């Protein structure tokens, strides 16, 4: 299961600002994707007074006061609307699609103008669609890590056995994300958000804790002569993973703290001579730890 479990609630109510890992439920959150038959479309909303007649002609009931969209590649595509024929995963009409935000919170803040000045809402944000799978499949995904599929813990606000499908990512215009911030049903707690992050790292870049965790397991198997790794060989391989864990931590924590301090100095007039020393002290400590871990891992590997 997830390493971070047991360290707090998996979910939290959505905050005022939209963040990485927020789960949206809205009818337009469709995982659209293109195929070779994708074409620009012209057309638009047929006014209500004509829509009812058109609906009758095509044997579709259309409410009297409802406009309906009429689009076709045969109509001249419009540069402003940028409509295109695309595909999406089939789902029951009654199921509002859910999707989880994968763009990082910094980009989200910039795109949605959350705590930013002199900007306008713009750009696109990345989402992974949520699907539901059988109980057996959901359980197997928690036990056997699939970089592309992230099983979400149960919650009454989500369908049973929900999975975030990294392989079905799609983008949404930031203006519509902003307009539908109220469509969020859940946010991820800190630990679960970290789990999602490393899963996304593994899927998108084949790097990070999941990727090297899997590869060190394979190394342990090789060192054991193939098949099930022996405990001693696993310990040797895990020493490599422990080393990389610390490198991952230094990159994500210490160096991000450096970035924040630099902004503090450049933008808010913070004093570099005050900000730098504690940061370098932490980095030095962690680098020495890293060197020790790397040396120990090398020794174990040689001995195995």
């Amino acid at each position, binding site marked *: 299961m997830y390493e971070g479990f047991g360290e707090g609630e998996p979910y939290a109510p959505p905050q005022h600002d939209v963040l990485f890992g927020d789960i949206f439920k809205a009818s337009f959150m469709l995982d659209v994707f293109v195929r070779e038959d994708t074409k620009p479309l012209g057309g638009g909303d047929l006014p209500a007074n004509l829509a009812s007649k058109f609906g009758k002609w095509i044997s579709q009931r259309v409410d009297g006061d409802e406009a309906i969209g009429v689009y076709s590649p045969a109509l001249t595509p419009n540069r402003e609307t940028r409509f295109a024929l695309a595909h999406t995963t089939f789902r029951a009409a009654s199921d509002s699609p859910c999707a989880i935000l994968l763009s990082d919170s910094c980009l989200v803040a910039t795109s949605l103008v959350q705590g930013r000045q002199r900007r306008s809402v713009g750009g696109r944000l990345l989402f992974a669609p949520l699907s539901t799978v059988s109980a057996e499949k959901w359980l197997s995904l928690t036990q056997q890590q699939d970089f592309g599929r992230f099983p979400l813990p149960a919650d009454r606000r989500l369908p049973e056995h929900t999975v975030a499908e990294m392989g079905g990512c799609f983008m949404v215009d930031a203006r519509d994300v902003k307009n539908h911030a109220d469509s969020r049903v859940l946010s991820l707690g800190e630990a679960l958000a*970290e789990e999602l992050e490393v899963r996304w790292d593994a899927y998108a870049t084949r790097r990070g804790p999941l990727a090297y965790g899997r590869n060190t397991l394979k190394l342990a198997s090789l060192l054991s002569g193939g098949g099930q790794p022996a405990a001693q060989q696993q310990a040797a391989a895990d020493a490599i993973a422990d080393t990389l864990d610390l490198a991952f931590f230094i990159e994500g924590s210490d160096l991000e703290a450096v970035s924040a301090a630099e902004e503090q100095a450049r933008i808010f007039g913070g004093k570099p001579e005050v900000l730098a020393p504690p940061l370098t002290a932490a980095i030095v400590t962690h680098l020495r730890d890293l060197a020790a871990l790397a040396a120990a891992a090398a020794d174990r590997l040689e001995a195995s």
Partner: protein
Amino acid sequence: MLCFMTGAPGFLTNHELDQFLGGGDSGQRQRQRLLAAHLLPSAVTLGKVRRFNVALLPRFVLAGLARDLARIPHATETMQDVAARTLRSEAFGQVSAAVRESVRSFDHWSFDELVDGVVERAADAVHEWDEDVDAAEQELTERLGISFLGETGVVREADADVCVIALDSGGEEHVPSTRVVTAGVCGRAVLLQRVKVLSKEVGYVMPVENFGTEPGERDLAAWFASMSQPIATPGVVTADETYVSDSESVPYGRAYSRRGHWHGSSTMTRVPAVR
């Protein structure tokens, strides 16, 4: 935008009545019995055209298929009188000639093709006689309390036993196949003719008359109708199996579980200072 002017066929033949009465020899015998009981008015016989014996009747004779008609005082005489008057018109003469012409090209009996052929040959007369039939039905409603109501719709589903009609006005009607005299093709535009005698209402499904349509237009309309069919919906949202899985499972696991030490280093949840 394409426009269609449609109408309900004002005429039926002995073949359609036989079908409505159960089809085959049994339907034919049943029709003869109703004729003998004066519940059906006398038809205009066109005789044998190719291998088909053809007799024409106005649409409102459907009321005679309900035995309850006999319980309405003077109903049979009134029906005979109104039918005879309707069948004497000049427009009906042209319609019956068009029927004869159309049937001459038949290899098999098809009311769909008959209606199309008659409209093609005598559209103005068909239009005029349809109005006569509408007026006659109005008269029967006023004199006998019988009601006639035609509703357009499309065939939603059809099998050997039942035809499901999606009505333009909303809702669906399940009609036994014996009361359907149009090809049960999904998406086909049809007319559901409701006939109510006393408290009993029966619906009959027949083709619509299409006036002023170019060849292929009705097929186009039928295509749109078929695109409007409801789609089967699964109970749950299922994953698109075209997603490439990355499970890459290995046939072994760790000798003991390992806990990583990378926690607390998230970069994706971090929001840098205000800029």
